[in-house]
C-alpha cells in the first residue's frame, strides 16, 4: 500500500488538475447566470497545479511500480525533470491561453458554455500531463486519446461558422485513424515482446532480436500516432485545416501545448525504448533494430521544407502560422536526430522560445481578428501605422520565428545548428539554414503588408485594452531579452534533460 501512497504523491499535480477540473464543472453548474468567474477559477486551478509541478522539480521516481520479473525497477508513470520541464511548458501555455480566451471575442460569444470550454481545456491538460510522463503503452494510448477527444470537441467548440464543425470532423476522423493505427502497432509490439512497458521492451531489445519487419512495421505505426500529434510530415495533413477552422485560442493551444506533449512522448519513447546507453559526451547509443536516425532526418527535412514552402502561398494568417508551426516541428525534430543530450538541450531551449514567439504571433492575430473579424493578410495593410504596438510586436515575433538576431528565435536556431554541426551533420544544417531563408519570404511578407503598404481609411486601428497591451508586452519582452541574455534558459534546459532510466 505504501507503494500506492507513494505513487499518488508522485502524481500529485495530475490529481490537483483533476480536482480543479471537478471544481470547474461544479462551479459551472452552480453559477449559470454569470460565467465571468469561470476564467479566474480556471486560472487559479492552473496556477496551483503549476505550483505542484514546480515543487516536483529535481525530484524523480516511478509511480505505480510494477517492478516484478526484471532487474531494474520501472513503472507506468515516470516523474523526472524532463517531464517537469514539459509540464511547465504546458502550464505556461495554458495560463496564456486562459488569458487569450478571456479577451477573445470568439469565446466570449459563447459565454454561456464557458464552463465546458475550460473543463475541456483541463481535460486536454490532463491528457498532456500523462502523455508527458507515461512509460507504458497502455497509459500512452489512453492519455493520447484523452487529449485527442477533448481537443476534437474544442476545435469545433464555437459553432459560429461552418468551418468550426468541419475542423472538428476532420480532426476527429484523422485523429481516430492515426490512433487506431498506433493501437494496432502497439498490439504488434505487445505480441512480439509480451509487454507494454517501455523499459521492459528496452531491456528485451538489448538482449534478444525480433522479426525486424514486423517490429519496424509496428514502430512505424506507433510513430504515425505520435507524428500526427506533433504534426510532422507526412502525418500533418490535418494541421492546416484544423488550425484554420478551430477557434484561434484552441489553435494556439494545439500549436504549442499538444505539440509539446507529443514531442515529450516521442523523446521519451525513443530514449527509453531504443537507447542502450548514454556515453560520457552525452551521445545516445541506439539499439540496432530500427534506424531512427535516418527516418527522423528524412522526416524533419521533409517537414520543414513542406511547411515553409506551403506557407509561401497562404493569405490567411492563421493558416500561414499553421504551416509555419509545421516547419518548426521540423526544426524541433532536428534536436532529436542528433541523438545526444546536446541535441535534447537545444530542442528544449527551442521549445521555450517557440512557445513565446508562436503564442505571441497568435495573440496578435487574435487581437486583430477581434477587431476586424478576419485573418486575411490584405486586411493588415498599413496596420503598423494605425496600431504601432501590435505592429512592432508582431514584427518582432515574426523576425524571431525567422530566426534573426537579436531575437530569441536566433538563439534557438543557433543552438540547433550548433548541435547539428557538432554531430558533423553539415548537410542537414545547410538545408535547414536555406529553409530559414525561404521562411523569410512569408514572414517578411506580413511585414510588407503592415508597413510598406500605407494605411488606408479602411485600415482598422486596433486599440486593445490595457490588459491586452500588457499581455503582448509580457510575451514580447522575453523574446527580446532571451535574444541578448539567454544563460538562465540554457541552465534550465540543461537541468531538465534527465530522463528516468539509463
Amino acid at each position, binding site marked *: 500500500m505504501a507503494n500506492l501512497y507513494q505513487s499518488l504523491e508522485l502524481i500529485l499535480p495530475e490529481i490537483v488538475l483533476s480536482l480543479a477540473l471537478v471544481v470547474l464543472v461544479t462551479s459551472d453548474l452552480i453559477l449559470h447566470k454569470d460565467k465571468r468567474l469561470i476564467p479566474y477559477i480556471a486560472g487559479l486551478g492552473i496556477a496551483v497545479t503549476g505550483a505542484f509541478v514546480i515543487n516536483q522539480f529535481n525530484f524523480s521516481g516511478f509511480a505505480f511500480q510494477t517492478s516484478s520479473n526484471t532487474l531494474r525497477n520501472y513503472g507506468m508513470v515516470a516523474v523526472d525533470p524532463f517531464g517537469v520541464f514539459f509540464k511547465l511548458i504546458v502550464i505556461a501555455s495554458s495560463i496564456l491561453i486562459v488569458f487569450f480566451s478571456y479577451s477573445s471575442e470568439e469565446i466570449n460569444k459563447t459565454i454561456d458554455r464557458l464552463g465546458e470550454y475550460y473543463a475541456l481545456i483541463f481535460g486536454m491538460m490532463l491528457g498532456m500531463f500523462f502523455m508527458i510522463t507515461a512509460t507504458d*503503452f*497502455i497509459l500512452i*494510448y*489512453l492519455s493520447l*486519446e484523452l487529449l485527442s*477527444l477533448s481537443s*476534437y*470537441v474544442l476545435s*469545433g467548440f464555437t*459553432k459560429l461558422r*461552418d*468551418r468550426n*464543425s*468541419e*475542423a*472538428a*470532423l*476532420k480532426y*476527429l*476522423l484523422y485523429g*481516430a*485513424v492515426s490512433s*487506431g*493505427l498506433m*493501437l*494496432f502497432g*502497439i*498490439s*504488434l509490439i*505487445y*505480441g512480439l515482446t*509480451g*509487454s*507494454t512497458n517501455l523499459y521492459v521492451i528496452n531491456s528485451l531489445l538489448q538482449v534478444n532480436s525480433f522479426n525486424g519487419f514486423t517490429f519496424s512495421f509496428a514502430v512505424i505505426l506507433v510513430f504515425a500516432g505520435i507524428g500526427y500529434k506533433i504534426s510532422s510530415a507526412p502525418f500533418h495533413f490535418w494541421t*492546416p*485545416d484544423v488550425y*484554420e*477552422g478551430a477557434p484561434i485560442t484552441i489553435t494556439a493551444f494545439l500549436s504549442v501545448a499538444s505539440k509539446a506533449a507529443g514531442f515529450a512522448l516521442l523523446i521519451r519513447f525513443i530514449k527509453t525504448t531504443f537507447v542502450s546507453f548514454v556515453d560520457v559526451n552525452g551521445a545516445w547509443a541506439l539499439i540496432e533494430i530500427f534506424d531512427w536516425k535516418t527516418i527522423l532526418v528524412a522526416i524533419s527535412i521533409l517537414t520543414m521544407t513542406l511547411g515553409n514552402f506551403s506557407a509561401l*502561398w497562404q493569405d490567411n494568417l492563421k493558416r500561414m502560422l499553421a504551416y509555419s508551426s509545421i516547419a518548426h516541428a521540423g526544426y524541433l525534430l532536428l534536436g532529436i536526430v542528433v541523438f545526444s543530450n546536446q541535441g535534447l538541450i537545444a530542442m528544449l531551449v527551442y521549445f521555450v522560445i517557440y512557445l513565446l514567439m508562436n503564442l505571441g504571433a497568435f495573440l496578435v492575430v487574435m487581437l486583430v481578428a477581434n477587431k476586424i473579424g478576419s485573418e486575411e493578410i490584405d486586411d493588415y495593410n498599413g496596420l503598423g501605422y494605425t496600431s504601432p504596438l501590435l505592429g512592432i510586436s508582431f514584427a518582432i515575433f515574426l523576425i524571431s520565428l525567422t530566426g534573426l538576431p537579436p531575437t530569441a528565435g536566433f538563439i534557438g536556431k543557433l543552438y540547433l545548428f550548433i548541435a547539428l554541426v557538432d554531430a558533423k551533420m553539415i548537410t542537414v544544417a545547410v538545408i535547414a539554414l536555406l529553409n530559414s531563408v525561404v521562411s523569410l519570404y512569408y514572414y517578411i511578407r506580413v511585414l510588407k503588408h503592415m508597413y510598406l503598404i500605407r494605411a488606408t481609411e479602411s485600415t482598422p486601428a486596433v486599440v486593445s485594452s490595457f490588459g491586452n497591451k500588457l499581455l503582448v508586452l509580457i510575451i514580447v519582452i522575453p523574446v527580446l531579452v532571451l535574444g541578448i541574455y539567454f544563460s538562465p534558459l540554457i541552465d534550465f534546459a540543461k537541468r531538465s534533460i534527465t530522463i528516468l532510466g539509463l
Partner: protein
Amino acid sequence: MLQVGLTHFLVVSAILFSFGIYGIVTRKNAVMVLMGIELVLNAANINFIAFAKYGNFGFSGQMIALFVIILAAAEAAIALAIVLNIYKTFLSVNVDEIDHLKE
C-alpha cells in the same frame, strides 16, 4: 479436427484491419467511416487477446482490450455528436462535401 492457433487469430485481425482501412477510405458517409475506425480498433483488440492467450503474457492483453473498448465507446459518442453537428451545418454527412478548408 483443426487446431485453432495464434495464426488464425492474426489472420482474422489482419483482415479486419484491412476492411477497416478500406471502409475508412472509401465510404462517403461519415458514420460508415466511423464504423471503419471501430473495425481497426477491434482488430487491435483481437491481437492483444490472442497474443495474451498464446504468449502466456498473463491477462494484460485482455485488460488493454477492455480499456480500448471503453475508449472506443467514448470516441464513438463524441464522434456522433460531431457528425450531428456537421449534419446541422452542412445538411449532409458526406465527407467529400466537407472540404471548405483546403489548400
